[in-house]
């Protein structure tokens, strides 16, 4: 039993729904009690979908248990087929139905439906949403794919995008543009927008572009094994990764890498003078493994941030994440415990968080700016405008998105100069978004955190406390902590202005 306040991932059947909803002409019959239909609103509200997800929930009740939940399931299957006429039926169970062991796959088989039926094994008490999507898509590919001649032109499949994915809609478009510029056509994109008939044609592509390992890796490995279809390992988020991606493709198929249209504004924006204020800003990065790792590379190599914390919530990515974090001199944080992540953020006191909606919330509480780089997402992460993460435009979007929550270059200096100006003070927050200003009320929480680490044994003298307030809010937490640590290490019981500046000199970077 694990106490959980918020979860980064839903149960595995939500992953199955993401695949079914992303595809066309597919229907999922889910053996589930009343209430599990809440999953529909993720798609209709957060993603603003104009259709209900193609899911029939059997809706069994307490009184059905012990009588006949199995025939309820069969009835739901038959009615769903009659009503929606899908080309492929998926059947599975949610967490409760898994316990009553009705065997949806076996039951559906007895119905003799005129379309392929794919039974899904979704172990709700062991695995989570990303696994559910990965497994569902793999099963669909395994059922529908068949050996075909490769296309005469160079083609690839885009693998991994689903419904409710972070910027999947726009990444698909951006990747298509990038590949087309290299003379590569997209054979199919799946699960997003694919029909079962499309999946039948999957093996005729020359290779697969694995866009999201979280939801497409099992299928890619199967396709490689079965049809010798190689897949790309680089996820082209960020300028360096795009370049590696193009290189990787050139090793798979015959292309001229110079044809690739990879031009992004990011390198120049990072090099321009104004961005000096970004240099060595301390960032904490957390998300799904793929997005967190690509973000860390951009942060360090393409903007010049200092990565002070890095991790992911999906255990499936733990191994590559640990290895990757080590190259930053960091121990990766692998956790799906929101409170643990919060503690970690408090401890490293970053100036910017790159995270999920969860970390955005933590940032709000602690007064630390945050940009969202990964699922789990909310309605504001589905913007009306084109805003991919992948490809050259993705790099542009990322630069803008990450810089936006920060106080801008010259403004930062002015804030330092006129700390106590009655309207131009740091607690008013960045001038370009007043609504997001951290505000005074957030301050005590950071203070509290810092205090608790020093165990309240060291006293701040009034003058020093006042001086500390003159330090910009985004580095104040760090300054307080460093000073306390310095005082503690040197056996001081009080902190004076002198101590504050001694500590500052000691920790100067």
């Amino acid at each position, binding site marked *: *039993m694990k106490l959980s306040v918020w*979860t980064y991932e*839903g149960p595995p059947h939500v992953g199955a729904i993401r695949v079914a909803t992303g595809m066309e002409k597919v229907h999922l019959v889910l053996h589930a*009690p009343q209430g599990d239909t809440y999953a529909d609103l993720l798609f209709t509200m957060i993603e603003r979908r104009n259709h209900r997800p193609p899911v029939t929930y059997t809706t069994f009740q307490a009184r059905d248990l012990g009588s006949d939940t199995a025939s309820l399931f069969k009835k739901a299957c038959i009615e769903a087929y009659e009503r929606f006429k899908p080309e492929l039926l998926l059947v599975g169970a949610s967490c409760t139905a898994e316990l009553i062991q009705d065997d949806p796959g076996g039951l559906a088989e007895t119905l003799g439906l005129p379309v392929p039926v794919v039974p899904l094994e979704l172990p709700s008490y062991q695995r989570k949403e990303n696994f559910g999507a990965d497994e569902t898509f793999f099963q669909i590919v395994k059922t529908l794919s068949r050996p075909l001649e490769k296309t005469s032109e160079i083609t690839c499949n885009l693998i991994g995008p689903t419904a409710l994915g972070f910027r999947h809609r726009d990444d698909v478009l951006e990747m298509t543009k990038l590949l087309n510029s290299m003379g590569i056509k997209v054979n199919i994109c799946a699960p997003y927008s694919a029909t079962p008939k499309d999946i039948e044609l999957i093996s005729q592509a020359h290779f697969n572009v694995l866009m999201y390992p979280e939801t497409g890796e099992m299928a890619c490995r199967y396709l490689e094994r079965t049809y010798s279809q190689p897949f790309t390992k680089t996820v082209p988020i960020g300028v360096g990764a795009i370049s590696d991606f193009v290189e990787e493709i050139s090793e798979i198929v015959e292309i001229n890498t110079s044809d690739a249209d990879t031009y992004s504004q990011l390198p120049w924006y990072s090099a321009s003078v104004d961005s000096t204020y970004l240099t060595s800003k301390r960032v904490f990065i957390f998300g799904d493994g793929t997005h967190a790792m690509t973000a860390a590379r951009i942060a360090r190599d393409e903007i010049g941030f200092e990565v002070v914390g890095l991790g992911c919530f999906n255990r499936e990515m733990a191994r590559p994440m640990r290895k990757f974090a080590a190259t930053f001199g960091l121990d990766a944080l692998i956790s799906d415990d929101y409170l643990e992540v919060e503690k970690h953020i408090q401890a490293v006191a970053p100036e910017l968080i790159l995270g999920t909606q969860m970390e955005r919330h933590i940032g709000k509480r602690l007064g630390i700016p945050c940009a969202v780089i990964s699922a789990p997402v909310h309605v504001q992460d589905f913007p009306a405008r084109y805003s991919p993460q992948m490809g050259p435009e993705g790099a542009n979007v990322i630069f803008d998105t990450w810089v936006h929550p920060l106080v801008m270059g010259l403004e930062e200096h002015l804030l330092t100069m006129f700390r106590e100006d009655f309207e131009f003070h740091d607690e008013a927050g960045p001038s370009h978004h007043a609504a997001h200003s951290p505000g005074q009320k957030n301050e005590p929480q950071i203070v509290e955190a810092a205090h608790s680490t020093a165990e309240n044994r060291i006293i701040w003298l009034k003058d020093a406390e006042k001086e500390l307030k003159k330090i910009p809010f985004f580095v104040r937490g760090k300054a307080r902590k460093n000073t306390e640590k310095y005082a503690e290490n040197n056996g001081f019981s009080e902190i004076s202005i002198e101590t504050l500046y001694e500590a500052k000199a000691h920790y100067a970077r």
Partner: protein
Amino acid sequence: MSSEKSLAGCMNAPVLKERGQHEVFCGLTSIIWLHRKMQDAFFLVVGSRTCAHLLQSAAGVMVFAEPRFGTAILEETDLAGMADAQQELERTVEELLSRRTDIKRLFLVGSCPSEVIKLDLATAAEKLSERYFPKVNVINYSGSGIETTFTQGEDACLEAVIRGLEPSNERQLVILGALPDIVHDQMLRLLEQLGLKNVFVLPQVRVDDKVSVGSNTHFICAQPFLGASFEEMVRRGAKPIFAPFPFGASGTTEWLKAICGIFGVSKETFEAVTDAPRRRAEIAIEKVSKILTGRSLFLFPDSQLEIPLARFLNQECGMKLIEVGSPYIHKQLVGPDLQLLPEGIIISEGQDVDKQLDRVFDHMPDLTVCGLGLANPLEAKGLTTKWAIELVFSPIHFYEQAADLASLFARPINRSEKLKIGRVA
């Protein structure tokens, strides 16, 4: 009073009972407002990852950094042996209570998986209550989807609370139902002005707010979804007061009148207290409801508020009813409202969502009240919708909120008329 009239309206109308896919929340969802209302309580759902995911998704955003609810997620090892699960639960509670020392009431909330594996939360609650006495009171109830729909979670919680009330022979009035603070205060002010003493509200905001029950207790529900709590109060000897629910000017007047009838408040006092706010409400409703008059309305089942709200929208705002769906109809509780509904409409209970969608497209109503899973798909097909969930989160009861309630329905129609650019999704 309405109960003296002969049965009329839709009281005896046939009810279309359906079963099939229910597009509704389970009872766990009510924790989202209950934990705000009961400020020293923590709601610990004993369930699966799905339960945890539902709670954060239904809340829409993570409103609270560390909310007073959480899920003890059952894992493979818990399912292997029952003894383990009990011990694990005790350990989880210990972990929780040591971190949250402010908690005085702990609700162990059963879920679909905990009910199916027959995890005995009643015994667990008893044991934990003994262990943490007198600091923390541990109570259990089920919010599972196999037993409860959405607001029935509050009903099950309240029923468990009532079971634990001290007996009393005091003559008193108890009001059932969690209400937003502003509404709660207005209600108590009105009752005080009417000269009523010994007025108590369940659920209590804090555990120290002592409420008792006995044969001299009269009670009335402020929410229509409290059927089980109603039965439990009756079992404890309390006497029910029936009235239409306090929505709009007339609903509020009838509700207060029924209470005053029992407690012998004079006609003069009643009029002196209610005339001004009633007139104020009537004028405000008239202004807001112009856009609603004559429009057709279809309500999908959601919170059991549907029948009383249909009464308000029909009687006080002039809307034409097509179908009024409710997840469950407690005839005694909603009877006074049901009697006031016009004949010839469809009253449905339960749901087969696909068939109900067929009916909504047959009728193409001017306004459809439905859950979040259906709203955008219906908007995309040209229908104008109102999210039902807002009705349980917003202050909508009593005189001063009557026009706000009408506005909630007017706004989507107003928007549809303002937008001149089509709605292709």
